[in-house]
């Protein structure tokens, strides 16, 4: 049994009585200790699906259909209290914005300690000791003193380390990291991702790494889901997709970021057009208006998801070779 099994998840935004699906029929699973990457542009539905798993969707967002099984239990059948108890204890989250994700008027220590007290039932002094250990583990030097400090005393990278310590506080089985490095300096990004990878390995924690950079995925994740317009368009082994993407969108994502293992003379190629707007209906494949390979069938029929890709004309390794 996988740790997390999401089946046909559909999440809609209800606004002025109109329902707009943001996540459409998404299915994926995460094994214990595994790292799964979810890759896509802004608005592809990757954050919304992770918030749905955490039970933290805003009021206007609702799960329309599908199941989210965590260790076999369907989270949609649980009440608010049971869901609350799972948060922190079974799964936790590292958010995108370390600058605003910590409460500015409470000390770093109190924000870590409250999670330990709530989820592990530790006494104040035990929780404090554990908070110091956690800070040391995530690489915050002089942990004892820094415990008393406030978020504004910390740099962005350091705050993200604190967020990781909070996420780790109750030894959850799953951590969801929603673009944890997007707001950080490039030099810090690798440090934070290496830290997360090491910690998840040491603790046997499963990780869902949400990112828009398909380039970093191969290094940190075993498997990857590429999302576009609320759907998974390609799914499979991270390295395989990195080396030979089959969906034109995955290819576009890879060509738009520099690669160290490639000739620098190959120019970066942006994906034409703008991301699919969930409020406009697009017939057929939602990527077709931007797809260089689109034909008339792509405008008419939604491509079925078969053999790890949702495309009428999946790329082959040869096609990729000749295109570059």
């Amino acid at each position, binding site marked *: 049994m996988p740790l997390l099994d999401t089946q046909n998840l559909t999440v809609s935004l209800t606004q002025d009585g109109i329902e707009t699906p943001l996540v459409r029929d998404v299915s994926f699973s995460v094994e214990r200790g595994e790292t799964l990457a979810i890759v896509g542009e802004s608005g592809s539905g990757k954050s919304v699906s992770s918030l749905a798993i955490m039970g933290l969707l805003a009021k206007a967002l609702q799960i329309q259909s599908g199941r989210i099984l965590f260790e076999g239990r369907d989270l949609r059948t649980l009440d608010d209290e049971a869901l609350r108890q799972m948060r922190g204890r079974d799964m936790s989250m590292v958010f995108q914005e370390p600058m605003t994700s910590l409460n*500015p008027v409470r000390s770093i220590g109190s924000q870590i300690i409250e999670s330990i007290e709530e989820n592990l039932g530790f006494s104040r002094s035990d929780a404090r000791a554990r908070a110091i250990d956690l800070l040391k583990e995530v690489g915050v030097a002089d942990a004892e003193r820094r415990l008393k400090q406030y978020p504004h005393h910390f740099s962005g990278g350091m705050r993200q380390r604190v967020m990781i310590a909070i996420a780790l506080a109750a030894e959850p089985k799953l951590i969801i990291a929603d673009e944890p490095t997007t707001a950080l300096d490039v030099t810090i990004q690798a440090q934070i991702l290496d830290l997360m990878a090491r910690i998840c390995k040491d603790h046997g924690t499963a990780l869902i790494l949400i990112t828009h950079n398909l380039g970093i995925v191969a290094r940190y994740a075993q498997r990857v889901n590429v999302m576009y317009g609320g759907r998974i368009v390609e799914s499979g082994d991270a390295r395989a997709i990195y080396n030979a993407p089959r969906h034109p969108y995955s290819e576009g994502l890879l060509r738009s970021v520099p690669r160290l293992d490639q000739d620098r003379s190959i120019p970066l190629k942006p994906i034409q057009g703008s991301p699919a707007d969930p409020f406009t209906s697009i017939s057929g494949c939602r990527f077709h208006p931007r797809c260089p390979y689109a034909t008339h069938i792509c405008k008419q029929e939604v491509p079925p998801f078969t053999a790890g890709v949702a495309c009428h004309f999946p790329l082959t390794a040869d096609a990729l070779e000749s295109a570059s």
Partner: protein
Amino acid sequence: MLGYILRRLVGAVLVMLAVATLVFFMIRLVPGDPIAAMLADAGSQEAREAMTRRLGLDQPVIVQFFYWFGNMLQGDLGASIYGSNQPVMKILMEALPKTLSLALISFLIAITIAIPAGIIAATRKNSAADVGVSLFAFLGLSMPDFWLAIILIIVFAANLQWLPAIGYAPLADGFWPWLSHLILPGIAIGTGFSAIIARMIRSSMLEVMQADYMRTAASKGLTQRVVLMRHAFPNALIPVITVIGIAFALLISGAVVVENVFSIKGLGRVLIQGIQNRDYPVVQGAVLLISAFFVLTNLVVDLLYAVIDPRIRYS
């Protein structure tokens, strides 16, 4: 920190000296004079002149000013030129505890209503409770405090006879006599302020509840109650403190009218009578005291910021 407080206190003294100067000249711009107020048409020309001389009002205004200003700097606010000629300091010190008591009770009533009302309205946005709070705030702001005071007297003092209608009992007479005289005027003044503060808390809470750190707090598995009271409310309080501070100082001006309705001889009443009688020294002294109250409240509010928000440090 200590240096900051000292600098602020020096600033406060300068503000008060400016206020004193302004008030001295402004009260003299009010038509009429003390002699006319006291003697009306009764006194002869000689009596008027004698009184004018006795009160020093025959001197040029600028001479009067420096005379008064010099005495004030030595702590002598002069004596009332009306009736028993009591020293102004004595009049003010008798009135001050009454007004402070009234301000304190009004303030407590205001925040006791406003804090839960604001939090409930924010957490159950657009619910019946929220609409109820909005309605209460609308009514509370619309009702003039003197009108509410009269209604309260009619209902709770005259008809139900639960509470005294007028007067004041010092704390030395016991807690309940003191409190019972302050409940009705406290409600009359406090209702309007609770409406303002409740609305502030509501909008401030709504804003804070959108913050990223609220989502972080929820992701830790904290209960809704802990998330709200530990992470939302203290942060929401930061802008509200300013309003509460101003409101607290404004309670004094609310007291001016309400004290009259309830016949409490507090600062408000002293001030109004002083103005009616053109009792220059009393008006000057009372305004000086009220401005001191404003300035000190502002200082306390600024210091409170640093207590609530660790990002603010004074040096």
